[in-house]
């Protein structure tokens, strides 16, 4: 890994840390711009996984032998690292999950006994399906109803004018995305949590698109829960984190039953282990936690403020230059945004644009990005999305703009045949 450079990271040199970037696709150097779906992994993360399996692999918490001790130590060290990563008050507030989706489902499941008919769950119109469907299921189980904070329009901002009156409508829990995966909007998470807290509403922040990009401090945000995935922040797939405020975790029902989550088991009933183990049934993804630990170290060696400035800057640059392409319709705020840009192109469907770019070695994503209700509201079925990370460069933005301009001509423009 390159040495940390607190002031000005050498972004071009950091690319060498990611072995996968050194290849050609369809005869062109790979330009990977699908980071909102999953990011690539640095050598240090890959090495941590290999080292764990080659030297330390054993099951955690249940044996006395040396390897089990090492595996348990590594797993719990990753938990402590994750607590520092989001500035949780203690490692017991960190639950390892499969990813953001499972973290949200855990909370939604545990809240089954806390909601009654007439209660409400508040979400936004810009939710990823993973922060919408679990609440729909919870509403169905409990008779609670769903309320929505509206999105203003193509500029992709939350309309917060009526938030306080919405929260007053018997809302028990408010879940929202920190950064929208399809618009790039950075929501004012601390303000939203403060306004919810004033009315005694519990908050859950979907940090899937922000945890690997923005500085993250759950105590400063004032949230009750925060969920994210390792694979969207240079870590392995299959591991994620749910932060939960300890007092709430203590009260909550377990999610899945099984080994590790119990204190004592009888044929008829059982008692639960302490938090966070109460929520971690079965053998966890130990190697994933070890890999995630390495990823968090890697990101913080660079510095999350620097990463946010870098990929947010690339996205703003792409947004303003793409605006000049004939027939383009850009989504999300024109100014400050997360590291992605999403757009429609007149006469060219997103999947055609993605196929076109792929032939130039440029990996984009086209489709509904798991926010179907949002696009239905905005009147478009699919968009093309370019999403950036720390290893992307201004030269890659040049190639993106060029390929989109060519695709616009090929599929619908004046110059086509």
């Amino acid at each position, binding site marked *: 890994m390159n040495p940390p450079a607190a002031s000005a990271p050498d972004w071009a040199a950091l690319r060498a840390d990611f072995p996968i970037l050194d290849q050609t696709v369809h005869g062109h150097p790979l330009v990977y711009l699908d980071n909102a779906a999953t990011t690539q992994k640095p050598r240090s993360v890959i090495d941590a996984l290999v080292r764990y399996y080659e030297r330390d692999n054993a099951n955690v918490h249940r044996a006395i032998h040396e390897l089990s001790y090492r595996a348990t130590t590594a797993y719990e060290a990753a938990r402590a690292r994750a607590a520092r990563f989001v500035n949780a008050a203690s490692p017991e507030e960190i639950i390892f999950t499969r990813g953001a989706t499972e973290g949200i489902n855990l909370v939604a499941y545990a809240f089954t006994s806390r909601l009654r008919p007439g209660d409400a769950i508040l979400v936004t119109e810009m939710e990823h399906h993973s922060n919408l469907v679990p609440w729909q299921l919870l509403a169905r189980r409990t008779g609670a109803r769903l309320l929505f904070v509206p999105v203003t329009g193509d500029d992709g901002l939350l309309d917060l004018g009526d938030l306080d009156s919405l929260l007053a409508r018997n809302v028990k829990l408010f879940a929202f995305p920190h950064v929208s995966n399809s618009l790039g909007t950075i929501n004012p998470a601390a303000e939203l949590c403060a306004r919810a807290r004033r009315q005694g509403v519990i908050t859950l922040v979907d940090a899937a698109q922000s945890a690997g990009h923005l500085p993250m401090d759950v105590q400063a945000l004032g949230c009750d829960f925060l969920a994210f995935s390792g694979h969207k922040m240079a870590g392995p797939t299959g591991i994620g984190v749910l932060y939960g405020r300890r007092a709430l975790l203590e009260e909550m029902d377990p999610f899945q039953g099984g080994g590790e989550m119990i204190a004592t088991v009888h044929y008829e009933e059982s008692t639960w282990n302490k938090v966070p183990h109460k929520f971690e049934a079965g053998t966890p993804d130990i190697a994933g936690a070890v890999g995630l630990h390495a990823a968090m170290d890697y990101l913080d060696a660079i510095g999350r403020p620097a990463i946010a400035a870098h990929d947010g800057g690339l996205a703003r640059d792409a947004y303003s230059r793409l605006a000049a392409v004939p027939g383009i319709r850009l989504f999300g705020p024109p100014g400050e945004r997360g590291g992605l840009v999403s757009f429609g192109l007149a006469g060219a*469907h997103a999947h055609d644009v993605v196929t076109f770019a792929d032939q130039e070695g440029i990996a984009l994503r086209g489709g509904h990005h798991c926010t179907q209700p949002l696009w239905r509201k905005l009147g478009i079925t699919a968009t093309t999305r370019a999403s950036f990370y720390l290893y992307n460069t201004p030269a890659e933005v040049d190639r993106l703009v060029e390929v989109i301009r060519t695709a616009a001509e090929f599929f619908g423009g004046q110059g*086509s045949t």
Partner: protein
Amino acid sequence: MDLTELYQSVILENNRRPRNFRKLPAANRVAVGNNPVCGDEITVYVQMDGDRIADIGFQGAGCAISQASASVMTQRLKGRTLAEAEALFGRFKEIVTQGTPDEADLDLSAFAGVHQFPARIKCATLGWHAAINALHGEAVTATTE
């Protein structure tokens, strides 16, 4: 490969100006096809006269491959029976999965390039699946999954 192999002029042209892109007021068979991967949705309307397709139209939004394929399909299915339609779909599936053009059928053969893009085969067959479902009288949603 050259993108013009995938996006033949027949495809680009049918995408820009899809034929039979309309709802049939007299339709007696209707089916919806959707591709959950991209959210594309195509509704196929069929008006049967005895065992023959008197008229056929479609509406929906989707990529160039799915729109052009549905457009070409409506032109080829008019006047055919269910058995003939199924035989034609069989030939079309062979073209898009094997890449073997049929010299006698240039319009369908325009989709031969699709076989090099496995992720896009579902786009090419979306309208066809909906049409066959409609012909079977199953007014249900066809899915590519």
